[in-house]
């Protein structure tokens, strides 16, 4: 009998790599490297001026001089973002529960929330700088405003989509409303909550940076604005990169938390 052992011979397999554990690190890193290389090549081949689009090499060349200040301001942005996001998490969950459980809240709070979400937050920042002055407060509030909506809406729809038979099983045993919430409503909502957190954290970053470009004397948004006004486009890009790295890092943290807490999805 002839045994065909071609499958056992070492051979590059994309499918195998995609499903391996390290794939979640390897592929994003490869992507980043490819993007930077392409970028570098395009800038050099077409001879694009640095103040129009700096090459990655030019951006990284700013690190010795500006790495420290960018890091310091990144820290400011991270802080305001997380504070705004934290408030949005608490308020969003509370509003979501209210909307999901109370007909009154869903008829009053929900339209208000949707109406408010339609307002571009960038239009509110100048107003906030009048009310709260320049600094961290407008950034925290803008981060909160952008992050709260997806959280509230997702939590509300999580509660609204609990199968009625699942509740019937508990009601027939004499469970009270709190027990039904604790055993069914809350866990059922968790996947919805985590899905919204991944969106909300990016939104919170956007909120902070918007506010910093208008009403702040620190943070990544401020760095971008002042670097551009000094025609130091490479520095502006360095700040943008720092922002993107923070965004990816926090997103990854939420993905890990999600895997841990909503393992059944």
């Amino acid at each position: 009998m002839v045994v065909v052992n071609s499958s056992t011979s070492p051979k590059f397999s994309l499918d195998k790599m995609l499903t391996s554990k390290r794939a979640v690190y390897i592929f994003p890193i490869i992507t980043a490297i490819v993007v930077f290389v392409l970028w570098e090549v395009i800038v050099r081949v077409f001879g694009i001026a640095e103040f129009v689009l700096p090459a990655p090499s030019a951006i990284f060349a700013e690190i010795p001089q500006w790495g420290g200040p960018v890091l310091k301001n990144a820290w400011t942005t991270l802080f305001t973002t997380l504070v705004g996001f934290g408030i949005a998490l608490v308020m969003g969950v509370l509003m979501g529960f209210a909307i999901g459980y109370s007909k009154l809240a869903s008829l009053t709070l929900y339209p208000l929330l949707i109406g408010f979400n339609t307002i571009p937050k960038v239009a509110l920042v100048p107003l906030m700088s009048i009310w709260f002055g320049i600094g961290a407060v407008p950034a925290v509030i803008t981060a909160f405003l952008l992050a709260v909506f997806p959280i509230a809406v997702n939590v509300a729809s999580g509660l609204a989509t609990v199968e009625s038979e699942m509740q019937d099983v508990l009601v027939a045993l004499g469970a009270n409303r709190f027990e039904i919430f604790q055993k069914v409503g809350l866990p059922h909502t968790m996947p919805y909550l985590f899905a919204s957190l991944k969106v909300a954290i990016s939104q919170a970053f956007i909120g902070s940076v918007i506010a910093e470009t208008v009403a702040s004397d620190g943070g990544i948004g401020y760095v971008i604005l002042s670097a551009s006004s000094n025609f130091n486009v490479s520095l502006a890009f360095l700040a943008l990169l720092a922002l993107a790295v923070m965004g990816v890092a926090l997103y990854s943290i939420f993905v890990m938390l999600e895997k841990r807490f909503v393992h059944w999805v």
Partner: protein
Amino acid sequence: MVEHVSRQVSPQVTTPTALEFRDVGLTYDVSGSPMPVIENVSFKISQSYFVSVVGPSGCGKTSLLRMISGLNPVKQGTVYFHGEPINKPLQSVGIAFQNPVLLPWRNTINNVLLPLEIVPAHKKKLKSQKARYIASAQELLSTVGLKDFQTYYPWQLSGGMKQRASLCRALIHNPEILLLDEPFGALDAFTREEMWEMLQRLWVRSQCTSVLVTHDLREAIFLSDTVYVMGQRPSQIVYTLKVDLPRPRTLDMCFTPEFQRMYSELRQYIQRN
């Protein structure tokens, strides 16, 4: 099981009535005009008996079950449980639906233990006697062949396995009444027949009064002591079939002339109405 066989021999008068429907009706309000669904349904179910309700879809079978469980209020007539009118959820009820509705975030054993976290009599003791409760859940799971699947999550189980776990959940708190709303409706024919035998075992073991709503006439005959046939809307009970087949019943019995006779009898009544 011996106990059970002897119970079959003794006449019904000696067993107390567990459930009684007296002049029960149900009317839906369809955009302002009343539509009667059930009219004047009266029957008694003796304790530890297995009863099925069959009938065309939309005849209110499920509503009858939900009235017993207390999930739906009884507005016309009365449903009695041991002589007391039912007006709120009874805690001594176990329910299984066509959809097994296991909680996806709990593994099999924790799904089965769920009722014990709710029913007050067990809730208090759950912490101090956890090991005993887990042991009884494990025993129940091994009766239905899920011994090795305790730590599996619902998405890792087949349809039949989920339904078996759902039945275990319905029985873990030793309910006096077991309500089954087409529990095997979504399963394939082979699995369904396996489930009949398994359900019979569980019922013999638990001795609880059981009410099964089904579309499957063979299922009804196989499992029941009495089969009630409901007619078209507004429905009443149009026929009552006493099934005298000895227990434990086997799938082979489905091919006996006696079984076939009962089957065609039921069919006639379903079609005539």
